[in-house]
């Protein structure tokens, strides 16, 4: 659906992105992850045919980004980080305007507008002035604007910016429902939201692709994933001895486990970290429970995305390499 080859963009002398190459298939929900200033917004704007790259090629739906920008624009919906809303219009009038602007046939406008209002839960505020809406509703109106002409591609720049936790979940559910039927690209620096919403992640750091793949493949690449498991056990070791060591021994015997080490032990509980060649959580749990040791907690290494992220986007040498967005 989208093919990007060697995309580079300079703003004056400053290089914002360099040599980006990736593909995105129809129906995927892809998250662009990166620090502020990494180049996510620039990349998304180029994909939305709002700015031209300094060099490199972009193809959307087989159409060349430079030659057929107009055509591509009618097939995509873009939500910038500040939703492009006209404060003096009502939500319904605004969506009608956008629908007509994007070329929706006159007879379809009313239907498309009410569909967009439904999808984004805006029916209560449909006849309210946009200037009077709260931030959460403004974001939703912005999303509605991106959807109203039923584009096949949606590009959302920080769709959950400034929303409260409840609104973030709502937005996330909305976006997930849109995937499949639409191809969705979104950018964020909110790690948990992105890992819950997206099928695939593209990590951008300092204008380059630092990682590209599913969360699992990226975290495995960085030495994490379901292969690394944290376990808390309690009780008495069967057959005497220290609880931690006994448990580690037991776990080490489970096929597929590479290492099992005790991280700490106190008050009748022990914490262990186990590394396996793949996801062995079920077998490990079975082994512990069957031996009579109490299993309190077993989960894959927490916050991997954060630590991978931190590893991948470690700042370059010197403060001058961190540029403002």
């Amino acid at each position: 659906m989208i093919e990007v080859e060697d995309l580079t963009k300079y703003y004056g002398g400053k290089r914002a992105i360099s040599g980006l190459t990736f593909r995105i298939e129809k129906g995927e929900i892809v998250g662009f992850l990166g620090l502020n200033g990494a180049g996510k917004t620039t990349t998304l704007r180029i994909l939305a045919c709002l700015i031209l790259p300094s060099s490199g090629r972009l193809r959307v739906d087989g159409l060349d980004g430079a030659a057929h920008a107009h055509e591509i624009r009618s097939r995509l919906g873009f939500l910038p980080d500040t939703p492009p809303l006209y404060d003096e219009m009502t939500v319904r009038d605004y969506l009608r305007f956008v629908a007509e602007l994007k070329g929706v046939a006159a007879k379809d406008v009313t239907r498309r507008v009410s569909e967009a209002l439904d999808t984004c839960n805006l029916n209560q505020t449909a006849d309210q002035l946009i200037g009077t809406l709260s931030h959460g509703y403004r974001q939703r109106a912005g999303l509605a604007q991106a959807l109203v002409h039923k584009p096949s591609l949606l590009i959302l720049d920080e769709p959950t910016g400034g929303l409260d936790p409840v609104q973030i979940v709502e937005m996330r559910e909305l976006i997930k429902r849109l995937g499949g039927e639409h191809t969705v690209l979104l950018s964020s620096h909110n790690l948990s939201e992105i890992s819950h919403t997206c099928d695939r992640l593209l990590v951008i750091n300092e204008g380059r692709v630092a990682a590209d793949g599913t969360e699992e493949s990226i975290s495995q690449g960085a030495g994490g994933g379901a292969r690394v498991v944290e376990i808390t056990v309690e009780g008495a070791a069967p057959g005497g001895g220290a609880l931690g060591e006994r448990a580690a021994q037991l776990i080490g015997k489970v096929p597929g486990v590479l290492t099992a080490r005790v991280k700490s032990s106190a008050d009748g509980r022990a914490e262990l970290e186990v590394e396996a060649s793949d996801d062995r959580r079920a077998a490990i749990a079975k082994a512990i429970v069957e031996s009579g040791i109490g299993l309190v907690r077993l989960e894959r290494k927490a916050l991997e995305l954060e630590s991978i992220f931190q590893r991948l986007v470690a700042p370059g040498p010197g403060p001058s390499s961190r540029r403002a967005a």
Partner: protein
Amino acid sequence: MKSIALIIRREIGAYLRSPLGYVVIAVLLLIDGLLFNARAMGSDTKRLSAEVLANFFEYSSGISVTAALFLSMRLLAEERQTGTLTLLFGSPVRDYQIVLGKFIASLLFLALMLLLTAYMPMLIMVHGKITRGQIIAGYLGLLLIGAMALSIGLFASALTKSQLIAILGGAGITVCLVVCWMLSTVTDRPFSEIFAWLAMWSKHFPPFMRGTINSQDVVYYLSMTYFFLFSTTRVLESRRWSS
């Protein structure tokens, strides 16, 4: 064509729904009325009604230009500021359609204001003798000079995010063009003729206010308006691809 009509509708809606349009019209109508009362109607010497009408058009031309600059300063600067220009740029709408749509909408709103000044010539008609021709010519002149000022303001609005700078820029360009006549008095041919032609008011407006429609004056206002609209389109184009 549909896109232009769409943009015109939205822009007029914006003028009608925000205080700026009404405040501009109200204030300028007030000033126009006061000037009319003080100078055109209220002088002691006996004067021909045609002269009074010409005076009315003279003052109103300044009002028309001022109104045009205030009305046009927000057209593009505000959209840049609020981020809505991204919406227009991301749609299958061409730059010239955006520019034309906004220009025509502001011209219609300006025409509304000019319509509201009609009470003043009607006051003259009560006891005086004036021709319909002079009234039509005068209003045509007001519309043409207003259109030119709108295109200047629109151009300035395209250059900046700040509405304040837009109006200062627009006013600056307008003043330069008006002051060209001074330059024409201190230079030799051919420059004096060039500056005289370029001058926004001195050579080209008085015929309208006295009731004469000269094609060369109409051409002047239309071509200058076109020039600024064209430049605005080019500026938009360059902004689109750079940031």
